């Protein structure tokens, strides 16, 4: 069992060398790696802006940067993190890499469109970065009119175009996944034998395909308003600025489900593998992903409770918003039940999974405050909202991404990373995150508005706590960059299945062949069965 393991001779990383073999690749795995590098750069950039924000907010006065600069910081932080980090992250890196082997396929349905997706992402990123470098944008990532249509004099058009272009990347990825999951499954891989990670990505892809075009057209309308002086949202010509909000949130609410559903998929894989037990209530978990995707489309106006919508519309949207919480709760309960009578081990990916459970719980539950009408009036546009969505996006989605990255790193690279440093990082991230964002719930209820670079003196202590926590969080994110890159050359060889997982991707070598499988697998068992896996386990941590 502890034979000296070796990196296989032939794998996707050494199948062709040189820039051309990467830039013109059709291999979903190489595309995933290129996405990994791209989004990591974006994450770093978004993180720098976050640092700027927290530095300014350490003191009540606006004394670190000018007001306009601060406004650009939070705008660009939001734009980069949402559109260029979170939305692609798990699907474009982990989904791209793992979905074909998970279903027994050689590649996605449309490998060239996958590559096109990557190019489009790069082009969109270049537009947006160019806008940032030449002066930035200060509308907030939400671009509300009339401010964005007429009052702001920053580089809105190139930024909006960048987001528009990147949206196509998202649509094409989703389209690719849907067709792949429908048509590329290996013999015997029925829908109810799919790993829950695949179900989660199917649901995500539906949202990407149906929702993203709406932000695209909203951006087009903002563009013509700004570039040509059309008046679609101009009140002096009879236009309605609130119409922009409806169109914007019709996408941007489902977008948050694009960001969290894949992480929920990762969770199922981690909880199962590290309890050596099938997921409790498989079909409930699978269908809850679809339910979240569907319900996510009918709750958008809960972002607009104080925007002048009618009392009755507000009640309808509040009611519907509670509906979307239930499937998420169902997932959490099912994961908890999976632990019962499991054989649980706490490698780093499982630490991230545990962290996710705690933070996603808090984030999701605090959503209930905001869905509650009488409560939202007080909390809307305060730091309570900021804390809520960071608990889900960072405490949830990013922990899911980090957990998945650490889980599949040995598969992607053939190497193990430092057990010690990865555990330290996971703990730093968990602790730093709570220090940063929990005080924001309190200061939000106190009434501190969002997007303020200065605030009343009495709110300083809570803000300082938050800024201090952010440095711990930042450290927690920095360490993986170091030890993961280090592992590429110096990490212990992992072997095909270091964690004893049950899904198909672990039945191949690490790193995988370009074509994933030498022979087409035929699936005969149920998902998440560990009896057979144990017999083939070659490396135990």
């Amino acid at each position: 069992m502890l034979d000296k393991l070796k990196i296989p001779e032939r794998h996707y990383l050494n199948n062709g060398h040189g820039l051309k073999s990467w830039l013109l690749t059709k291999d979903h795995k190489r595309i995933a790696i290129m996405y990994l590098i791209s989004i990591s750069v974006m994450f770093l950039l978004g993180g720098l802006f976050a640092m700027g924000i927290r530095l300014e907010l350490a003191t009540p006065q606006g004394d670190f940067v000018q007001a306009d600069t601060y406004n650009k910081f939070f705008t660009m932080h939001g734009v980069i993190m949402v559109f260029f980090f979170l939305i692609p992250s798990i699907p474009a890196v982990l989904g791209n890499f793992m979905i074909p082997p998970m279903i027994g396929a050689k590649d996605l349905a449309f490998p060239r469109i996958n590559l096109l997706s990557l190019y489009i992402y790069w082009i969109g990123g270049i537009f947006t970065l160019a806008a940032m470098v030449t002066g930035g944008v200060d509308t907030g990532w939400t671009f509300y009119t009339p401010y964005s249509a007429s009052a702001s004099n920053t580089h809105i058009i190139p930024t909006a175009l960048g987001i528009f272009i990147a949206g196509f990347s998202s649509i094409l990825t989703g389209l690719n996944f849907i067709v792949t999951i429908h048509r590329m499954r290996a013999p015997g891989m029925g829908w109810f034998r799919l790993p829950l990670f695949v179900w989660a990505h199917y649901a995500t892809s539906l949202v990407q395909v149906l929702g993203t075009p709406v932000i695209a057209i909203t951006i087009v309308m903002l563009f013509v308003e700004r570039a040509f002086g059309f008046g679609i949202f101009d009140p002096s010509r009879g236009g309605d600025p609130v119409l922009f909000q409806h169109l914007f949130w019709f996408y941007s609410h489902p977008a948050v489900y694009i960001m969290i559903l894949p992480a929920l998929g990762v969770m199922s894989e981690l909880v199962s593998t590290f309890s050596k037990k099938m997921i409790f209530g498989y079909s409930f978990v699978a269908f809850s992903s679809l339910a979240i995707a569907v319900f996510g489309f009918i709750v958008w106006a809960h972002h607009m409770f104080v925007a002048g919508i009618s009392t009755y519309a507000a009640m309808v949207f509040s009611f519907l918003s509670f509906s979307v919480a239930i499937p998420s709760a169902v997932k959490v309960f099912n994961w908890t039940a999976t632990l019962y009578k499991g054989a649980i081990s706490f490698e780093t990916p499982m630490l991230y999974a545990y962290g996710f459970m705690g933070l996603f719980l808090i984030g999701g539950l605090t959503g209930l405050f905001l869905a509650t009408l009488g409560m939202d009036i007080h909390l809307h546009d305060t730091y309570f909202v900021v804390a809520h969505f960071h608990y889900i996006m960072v405490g949830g989605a990013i922990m899911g991404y980090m957990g998945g990255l650490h889980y599949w790193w040995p598969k992607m690279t053939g190497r193990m990373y430092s057990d010690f440093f990865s555990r330290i990082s996971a703990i730093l991230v968990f602790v730093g995150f709570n220090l940063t964002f929990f005080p924001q719930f309190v200061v939000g209820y106190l009434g501190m508005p969002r997007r303020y670079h200065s605030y009343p003196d009495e709110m300083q202590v809570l803000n300082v706590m938050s800024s201090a926590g952010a440095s711990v969080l930042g450290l927690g994110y920095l360490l993986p960059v170091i030890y993961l890159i280090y592992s590429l050359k110096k990490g212990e060889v992992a072997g095909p299945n270091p964690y004893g997982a049950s899904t198909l991707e672990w039945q191949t070598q690490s790193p995988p062949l370009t074509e994933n499988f030498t022979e087409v697998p035929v699936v005969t068992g149920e998902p998440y069965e560990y009896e057979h896996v144990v017999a083939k386990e070659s490396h135990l941590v």
Partner: protein
Amino acid sequence: MTIFGIPIFPEQASTFAKDVDALYFFILATCAFFAIGVSIAVVLLGLKYRKTHEGQIGARIEGNLPLELLWSVIPTIIAMFMFGWGASVYYHLRRPPDEALHLYAVGKQWMWKFQHLEGQREINELHIPAGRPVKITISSEDVLHSLYFPAFRTKMDAIPGRYTELWFEAQKPGTYHIFCTEYCGTNHAGMIGNVTVLEPAAYQAWLQGGGMEGTLAQRGAKLFNDLACQTCHLDTGQGRGPSLKDIVGTNVEFQDGTSAVIDEAYLRESILNSQAKIVKGYQPLMPTFQGLVSEENLVALLEHVKSMSPKATASSTAAAAPAAATPAPAAAEKK
């Protein structure tokens, strides 16, 4: 409320602040119950079922339908209860009492302009009496803003081209924050101020001290003459335009057969887009004052016209358009 001098809870300065806070504590308790409960379960299970030997695998348990139903139905019931409670608090927050003291607020980059009916104008400061409901009609001169009083637990967006409103009844004399909570550009963080709640007697005293131009309605009367409205709108009804006496709250029929109740939104539209609805029996002669009347002067004119219907406006509100006004005509001249 403070802990070690750090404020962690805002003052309860309005009558419904405690309703909102009660709702808050209920939701907090529910969420804490689930968050702590699940966290403990997850930790305890993780410890109890820790893997003890290599090759150990978990039990083969596929699921349990009754359990799934239980933990779907119970959260649904709790959610519905939360929704119902929240909706009823909200309903209360959005229904100003008839006898509310009426004020106007205009947001512009980057200040709040408040106008009292008695004529006082304040910028970023607001004085109001304790123990009396106050209703604020809000509009914007340029971009979106949002008027927020954390101590009163209420806010409402200011939308150009529309009126919105909020109300509260302040109980505790004191000074509290006013914030703008809809990002509006460079000095969004500077669009803040203080609302001072005074004992009724102190409020009366404050009122006497200001308003050199007279009440809002008096200023409106002066405008009414300056803009020559009285040349057509004779009280007798025989002029080129209909009489404006005692019309607020009544039903009026238009040339095309439709009719409407005369309220603030209608009055505003008549001034800015005079040809939109022509009263039956009159010619479409009224010029439009779009671009000629600022938001502040518009509200003064409204108050003057309302003062001509003393019975209908005895409670100092017209049949106000609800917060979700249908699209009003274009905004008045931007300053």
